[in-house]
């Protein structure tokens, strides 16, 4: 199949950036979206042009490196898939595809489709952990966890930290990201001792980084490659309010 592309090109953080048109021919429908970009890049290099920069690594939807807004949707139109899992068979022959970076103030563009997401790491460092020192720990089975809680905690813990929730949100809110971690630990007995501090500190850092607030748009859940539910945002709100009141 043949596709036309409109790709956001931006040389550096300071550069203004613009869309540039490309064409890629004879792409297998079984190829992934990123493999289609690989083909384009080989052609660009051969012509002596700068290839399109994009973040990627595992190419199986778990490392969270990739993230492109495709035709206006974070990670494209696939449900529950990251950009790297998107296959060309989801497009039609002759389609024009628009590819742009995550757009949010806390995610400045480094180059083309690559953005700086270190803000998410800083939120995690503010409280996204249980302070268990190496070695100072009880035997594993001395902390039983009811199966339904363990399963729900796992649903939340599945977050890959890609930032699609932020890119999809009209407010650039990171609530789903923060909620996933707060929820994961709030559901487990191990998370209990630092429960309040965690919710307060992570939300505080989120605000400090310039992410917006949640206005129940639910675009985050719709675009999340791990289908993380907004129910966790409701839990984050409860955790935060409880912690603030005490």
């Amino acid at each position, binding site marked *: 199949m043949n596709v036309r592309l409109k790709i956001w090109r931006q040389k550096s953080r300071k550069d203004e950036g613009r869309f540039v048109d490309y064409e890629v021919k004879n792409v*297998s429908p*079984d*190829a*992934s979206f*990123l*493999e289609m970009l*690989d*083909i384009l890049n*080989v052609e*660009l290099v051969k012509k*002596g*042009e700068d*290839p399109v*920069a994009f973040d*990627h*690594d*595992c*190419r*199986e939807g*778990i*490392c*969270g490196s990739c993230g492109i807004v495709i035709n206006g949707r974070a990670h494209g139109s*696939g449900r*529950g*898939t990251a950009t790297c899992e998107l*296959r060309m*068979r989801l497009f039609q022959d002759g389609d024009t595809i628009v590819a742009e970076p995550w757009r949010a103030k806390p995610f400045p563009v*480094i*180059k083309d489709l*690559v953005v700086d*997401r*270190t803000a*998410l*790491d800083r939120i*995690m*460092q503010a409280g*996204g*952990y*249980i*302070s*268990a020192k*190496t*070695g100072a*720990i*009880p*035997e*594993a*089975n001395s902390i*039983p*966890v009811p*199966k339904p809680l363990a399963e729900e*905690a*796992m649903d939340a*813990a*599945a977050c890959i*930290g890609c930032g699609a929730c932020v890119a999809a949100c009209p407010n650039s809110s990171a609530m789903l990201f923060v909620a996933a971690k707060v929820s*994961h*630990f709030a559901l*487990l007995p*191990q998370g209990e001792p630092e429960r309040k501090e965690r919710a307060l500190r992570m939300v505080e850092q989120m605000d400090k980084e310039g992410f917006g607030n949640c206005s129940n748009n639910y675009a985050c859940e719709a675009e999340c490659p791990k289908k993380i539910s907004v129910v966790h945002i409701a839990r984050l709100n409860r955790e935060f309010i409880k912690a603030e009141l005490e």
Partner: protein
Amino acid sequence: MKLNAKIPQGQIEKKWDTDRFQLKLVNPSNKRKYTIIIIGTGLAGASAASSLGELGYNVLTFSYHESPRRAHSIAAQGGINAPKNYSNDGDSIWRLFYDTVKGGDYRSREANVYRLSQVSNNIIDQCVAQGVPFARDYAGYLDNRSFGGAQVSRTFYARGQTGQQLLLGAYSALGRQLKAGSVKFFPRREMLDLVLDDGQARGIICRNLATGEIEAYEGHAVVLATGGYGNVFYLSTNAKASNATAIWRAYKKGAAFANPCFTQIHPTCIPQSGDYQSKLTLMSESLRNDGRIWVPKKKEDTRKPQEIPEEERDYYLERMYPSFGNLVPRDVASRRAKEMCDNGFGVGATGRAVYLDFADSIKRLGRHVIEERYGNLFDMYHEITAEDPYKGPMRIYPAVHYTMGGLWVDYNLMSTIPGMYVIGEANFSDHGANRLGASALMQGLADGYFILPYTIGDYLASTKFKAVKTEDAAFKEAQSAIDGMVKKFMSMNGKKTVEEFHRELGKIMWENVGMGRNRGGLKKALAEIPKLRTEFWQNVKLVGGAHELNSELERAGRVADYLELGELMAHDALHREESCGGHFREEHQTEEGEAKRNDAKFSYVAAWEFRGVGKPPLLNKERLEFEYVKPTQRSYK
């Protein structure tokens, strides 16, 4: 070069205790005076950095990723072993030790493997305390599943995302130290050289991938936790950026490289479908718990799998290995799949695939149970192939997955360069010639949480350090050498892309140094690789600038290293005139087609020493003694 493995004296059960007692300690208030540089933030690197930071050392940690959480450990699916015996099926530290030595086809160090088995129980405790959401039973206790090469259920798991959850655990522990300030993280930095002073590892040179700046950092010890080198084959299950550059540049600075030819080909991957393909996708080995592997009994049978009646199917692993069945070790399962396809029984459009069938399990357990156990893997398969594995069998084929070989380390995980430690997949230590499933996560975390934090202190406490600065000549020289290399790359205006060279090398490697190896093929590889390397340095084409994010330049350096490493692998495979584990020399097999070892001649670790690019490396041998697990012909029948 003299190899001293420093294995403690005494009974195997006591060796680690003895070692820990003999290791010198660093006084708590002195720890902050020592700077430890750690490269890589996967399971091994992140667990080491957080543990050393907690102890009070000054830790600098580096990754080519922007965030520590992107490391490729995240992609491990199936699980992590520990002999807790929660399943009450007769497991013990001794049994895990035995299974691992046997699974590695008697090419690992007994003392290391025993220690790994000992500390593995602590890892589960540690991860549970960190909030890793392992699978649980209805009583709320931890659940286990089975993996290849073992007859007990000892694998702990978090759905099909165990690596992700363990890495996020280590990442959170690291995050706590980053906030505390004991660890400093440098994102988007690729280590390009090791700096020695008086023969000691004292620092690194790296490139800031976002700005292109060449930077130098000094410390008292350097730890490489940079993973394996499977991407030398181009197509592998490794992440795209996983590379050998850090260990290879250290090798060129004097670290011995052990058993480079020991690579693992994983049996359950999604088959290749076209030339555009950029990587292969692994499906967890845990699928072999409930999936049955088969091919049609008739050659080149083009019927749909559902149309092939039961009696016309060959469940070849169950037939050949009645006691282990579909759960034979990876090397055996991979080789048999290749053999079936070579003999014309392969399925799918290319004939390079076998079926992995869940129909019986779905009938027996119900779809919901299979969904709970493997839901994400089934989704992934569906996504990639557009076929629904709940309705028909999966098609699978082996792919390069893990490298057992790596930099040589002693019992304390120190390489042949004083002050340089190597942990996780980057070292050669524990898996011999074949790694059992769910053991990589175990080794990475054992090294990082429970071994390195003790052993590195001994070196720091017993070594006299000269003050060094990054302005010193040793750093300046290394820095200008890297500058020169970057300039050389940027001035090259050939005709072929880095990608094209990498693919060509991968093809040579897969065909000649892959699943089946023979003298003729290896000699061919040894002739073709240097030719390709010469062409690379004359005809590669690079674009963009040196002082910006330039993925072509990043890859050029990595491929340049693969073009040397591939040759060493072929060299090692040619010299090892025996078959063992993942190293299958077609000239050396039993009548039944199993790997035939030659213990009298090859019961050693081959530790290669660099002598110059294109020059034959020097072989050093560390003899392996088996006091507790007597080497026999491995049998999984």
